[in-house]
């Protein structure tokens, strides 16, 4: 009984291990370096967004100063 269980579990583990290897990931994108393009695009958007928010922040600060002067 025990032996049988052992065989089944080893079989199961080897199966799941082979399944692990076959999981499809974007490996090609990584190997030919195109993933860096994706990162660059996202970074550009992020930086643009932050510059925009920063400029709004500055404008509001200026408005606040103007109001406190009045």
């Amino acid at each position, binding site marked *: 009984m025990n032996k049988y269980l052992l065989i089944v579990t080893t079989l199961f583990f080897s199966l799941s291990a082979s399944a692990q290897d076959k*999981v*499809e990931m974007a490996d090609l994108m990584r190997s030919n370096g195109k993933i860096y393009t994706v*990162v660059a695009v*996202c970074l550009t958007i992020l*930086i643009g967004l932050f510059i925009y928010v920063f400029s709004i922040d500055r404008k*509001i600060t200026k408005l606040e100063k103007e*109001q406190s002067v009045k």
Partner: protein
Amino acid sequence: MVNKIWWKILSFLLLVYTIVAGFLLPVPRLNILNETIRNLYFHVCMWMGMMVLFAISFYHSVKYLRHQNFRSDIASSSYAALGSFFGILGYATGFLWVNVTWVTDQGQSIGSVLKEPKLIGAAIALLIYGAYFVLRGSFTDIDKRARVSAVYNIFAFAMLFPSIWIIPRLVGSLHPGAPGSDSGNPALDRTDLDSTMRMIFYPAIIGWTLLGVWIATLKIRLELIKNKNIINE
């Protein structure tokens, strides 16, 4: 602290780190999720950010009832607005993610996905804050609006937490790591999360939340300028 610049730069750096490390570092290879597991750094952070923003809104509502300061009312409504915005983004991104994982690969119908406890919780939160803004809109008297909406905010937020705790015990979950689910995906459950992913996930939460807080403070300052004559300082 709020007007200092360092935490805005910190938010920027953390998000740059999130994008660079989030796309380039290795993630666990898993069926169904595949490469989309990286969504954890973006989609889940929206929910976390939403909860934090709602919590801050709650805090300001309590403060309003204690001190009757009009600033707190503006703050609480601004944080609630930003929180709802994050929630909508979370729903939208979640919808995209659901389409390629649960619906396509697990064969769930959209109907069964919508009954998922985390989605119910999120829907309740969004409905509550939708109601909050409807309530705000129905007043003309500013003082009354501030008071009554603060009361509703506190009540609803206090009811939200037991709800979020109760619902997963009533409905089975598709989300990994939740009680009642048996899919061992390495996300959300603290003990279950892959260590490299954790290294990116936590900074990502902080980064996105700080960005949300920043935009909310901008909104508050703008409202304060607009209502200068009411506040009279």
